[in-house]
């Protein structure tokens, strides 16, 4: 088989798996698990094969135009360069892990068949985005991911949190998608094509008339999908979905799509310095704000969600300084360790019976219950905090190095963008280490009652953790090889940023440890119960219960009134705002929700009172007319005949008058 055929099969197999799963899942329960896992695994193998054949060399390009569509042709096109090949492998790895993990995590869920099919569809859509060489086809995958995220986040639709979160995820990303679509059209109008290769060639010739406008419009969509400030608010709430879904969305598929899109079209963005500065500011605000918010969250998954936002900030930061190699490098390593973090968090939630860090910090021996999750999560958190030699260190240093490069004026990006990213990146490195440490300490070093015993975790779940731990540990070693796959720029850490970044991370970790030592004594005095333990259920059931009980137990879905929280001490007065995500939701409520609701009330009023009046009138008038006519229907033939003859006379007179007038 040619590379093109293989590449076509990569997104097609999960899609067929999803269709088959939806068709036969409920009728043949035995087929559900194979249909979920096997196509994804095969797609992974094929993606690896494609990557090996492509080998970072010349990009594989293939296109076929099914039908003429008007002015700008839409083609089924493949464009597989080194970025696409490697990201597809990451998507395959994470999706396979998530599917295998889900067989254990949701083994008792009655809606597992449709869930698995949707995850397959999600994977397929992401692979389509990755491989597609045509922006319209890319948009198809982009939107399929949007609707799949709606369904998957709302998997526990019995809980109001999940319903609200799924709607929010859908609407907020749509808020970005509308400008994104307009931007795509503007781009096509300027370049005359939706093909990536054609667009890039045209951009290289300087054929772009409105680079800033197009770049900013596209950035809106990217911010929505990749959860960048100010459109990031859907992501923390999306934690109401099952943990494997979070792992999939946050690590490899949906949020990566935005970064990947910018990376693919970076020359377009690079033509506009203003757009790059905007991107840099966006990335900086995202990094710093999300790290602060992560430090204040009580829900373990929300900590990870804000951490995802922050790490995506690093990636957009790298893009803002014009180094897409660093961005995709961080995307790959982050995809691995963040998937690991989420899946391990799912195991912990299952065992602890709660998603609250405050409750976990009052449990003794949680790490002994789940040694697999403990060790792998430690690895992943070290990678997240960018401690050498874990993978996160190399990728983050690549980003910081690129930023320094730009700040000193050695790159195409504006110097201002470089400085913004560099400073924010270093600050975020400090905070990242702090919240990683806090998470680790609170989750695994609690003191108090013995953690509940839920027996051994399914092998499907623990084995996946170790599989994902390998890239978290060792992916950094590929730093020497990767430039061959990318643009060729060096990704090896520079001394200055390495020392600075690692030093700040160590400082953050140590300070947090100190704060924890200081506050942990308080934990014994303030009991925080409300552990939603139901040992019989599978992970999904426990998690759904935990999410549903968090607000009744602690009064808020995001935070808990826990004085023993080191984050509370570290953040001081900022904590209250950080826990609420800096009240951005309130801003959105004032800016969008209230006006829309007011407009809806207006429309409702107009519909009920104005439009319906005409509708009712249209019904009432004929009824009155009918009643009048009915009165004429006496059944008396003489009456009818009188009317008939009277009409005849009138007509005859009229005819005579017309005739004489004409004469």
């Amino acid at each position, binding site marked *: 088989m040619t590379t093109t055929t293989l590449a076509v099969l990569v997104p097609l197999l999960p899609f067929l798996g999803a269709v088959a799963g939806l068709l036969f899942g409920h009728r043949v329960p035995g087929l559900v698990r194979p249909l979920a896992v096997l196509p994804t695994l095969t797609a992974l193998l094929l993606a690896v094969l494609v990557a090996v054949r492509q080998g970072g060399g010349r990009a594989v390009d293939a296109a076929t135009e099914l039908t003429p569509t008007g002015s700008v042709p839409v083609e089924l096109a493949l464009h597989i360069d080194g970025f696409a090949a490697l990201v597809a492998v990451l998507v395959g790895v994470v999706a396979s892990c998530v599917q295998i993990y889900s067989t254990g995590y949701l083994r008792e869920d009655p809606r597992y068949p449709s869930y698995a099919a949707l995850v397959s569809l999600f994977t397929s859509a992401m692979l389509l985005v990755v491989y597609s060489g045509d922006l319209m086809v890319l948009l198809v995958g982009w939107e399929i991911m949007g609707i799949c995220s709606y369904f998957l986040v709302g998997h526990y639709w019995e809980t109001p949190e999940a319903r609200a979160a799924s709607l929010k995820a859908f609407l907020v990303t749509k808020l970005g998608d509308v400008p994104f679509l307009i931007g795509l059209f503007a781009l096509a109008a300027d370049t005359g094509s939706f093909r990536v290769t054609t667009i890039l060639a045209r951009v290289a010739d300087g054929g772009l008339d409105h680079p800033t406008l197009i770049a900013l419009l596209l950035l809106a969509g990217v911010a929505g999908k990749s959860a960048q400030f100010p459109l990031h608010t859907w992501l923390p709430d999306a934690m109401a979905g099952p943990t494997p879904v979070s792992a999939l969305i946050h690590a490899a598929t949906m949020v990566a799509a935005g970064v990947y899109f910018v990376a693919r079209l970076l020359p377009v963005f690079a033509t506009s310095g203003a757009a790059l500065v905007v991107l840099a500011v966006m990335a900086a605000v995202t990094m710093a704000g999300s790290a602060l918010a992560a430090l204040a969250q009580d829900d373990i998954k929300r900590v990870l969600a804000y951490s995802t936002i922050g790490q995506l900030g690093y990636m957009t930061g790298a893009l803002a300084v014009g180094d897409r190699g660093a961005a995709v490098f961080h995307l790959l390593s982050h995809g691995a360790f963040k998937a690991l973090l989420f899946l391990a968090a799912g195991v912990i939630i299952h065992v602890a019976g709660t998603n609250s860090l405050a409750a976990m910090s009052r449990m003794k021996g949680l790490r002994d219950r789940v040694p697999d999750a403990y060790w792998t999560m430690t690895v992943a958190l070290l990678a997240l905090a960018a401690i050498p030699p874990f993978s996160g260190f190399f990728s983050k240093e690549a980003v910081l190095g690129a930023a320094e490069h730009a700040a000193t004026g050695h790159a195409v990006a504006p110097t201002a963008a470089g400085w913004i990213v560099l400073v924010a990146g270093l600050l975020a490195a400090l905070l990242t280490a702090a919240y990683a440490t806090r998470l680790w300490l609170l989750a695994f070093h609690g003191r108090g009652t013995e953690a509940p015993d839920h027996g051994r975790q399914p092998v499907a779940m623990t084995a996946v953790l170790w599989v994902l731990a390998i890239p978290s540990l060792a992916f950094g070693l590929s730093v020497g090889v990767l430039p061959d796959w990318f643009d060729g720029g060096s990704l090896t850490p520079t001394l200055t940023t390495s020392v600075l970044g690692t030093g700040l991370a160590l400082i953050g970790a140590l300070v947090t440890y100190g704060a924890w030592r200081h506050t942990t004594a308080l934990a014994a005095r303030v009991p925080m119960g409300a552990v939603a333990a139901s040992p019989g259920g599978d992970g999904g059931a426990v998690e759904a219960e935990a999410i549903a009980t968090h607000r009744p137990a602690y009064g808020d879905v995001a935070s808990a009134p826990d004085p023993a929280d080191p984050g509370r001490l570290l953040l001081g007065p900022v904590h209250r705002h950080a826990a609420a995500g800096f009240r951005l939701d309130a801003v959105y409520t004032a800016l969008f929700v209230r006006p829309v609701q007011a407009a809806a009330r207006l429309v409702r009023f107009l519909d009920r009172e104005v439009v319906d009046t005409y509708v009712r009138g249209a019904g009432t008038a004929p009824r009155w007319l009918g009643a009048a006519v009915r009165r004429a229907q006496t059944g*008396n033939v*003489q*009456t009818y005949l*009188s009317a008939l*003859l*009277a009409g005849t*006379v009138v007509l*005859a*007179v009229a005819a*005579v008058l017309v005739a004489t007038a004409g004469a």
Partner: protein
Amino acid sequence: MSPAAATAATAAATAESHGFLSPTGVEIAFLLVGLVTLGAAVITVTTRQLVHAALWLVVALGGLAVEYLLLTAEFIAWVQVLIYVGSVVVLLLFGLMLTKAPIGRSPDADSRNRPVALAVALLAAAALVWVVVDAFRTTVIDLDGAAQGSTDVTGSILFRHWVLPFEALSVLLLAALIGAIVLSRKKAAEDTTASPATDPHEDAPTPEGDR
């Protein structure tokens, strides 16, 4: 009936000289008979005594027969007398009797539709008279010459040119005859077996009612 032959040209010339103010004898006769006919017709449709209506109808139809005579249509006139006065009115009288029409004044001879009927009739009359007078004010019928509706003439044209319609008409009459028999035969059988069915005040179902 002047024996003098008049050409069409002279007829046209004389037509202009004849106004309504100098009527001929025929016109006077026609007018008088016409008034009688119209009066009889009006009484026919307004009288409250049903049998009187039939008798006034005889006057009206007879008057029309005279008008036909004045128009030199002799044969039609006699046919009118024979068929209408002789048979139709008799049939109507039988109908009145069979339906037990009250003798004497019946207060409900007119329906509640009367004002509307009056309005429609007056309107139609006004329109028709206006149109007819407007069109034929100066037109005169020349009655000189051989009678145009003598039995001789009528017989010859009827059996020379109108034979086929005439025969078709006989079929129609036959059909009407059979139809009338069929319509009344059922009732004739009922009349002999169940006379209460004709009684408007007895509505209890008879044993034969559910045949």
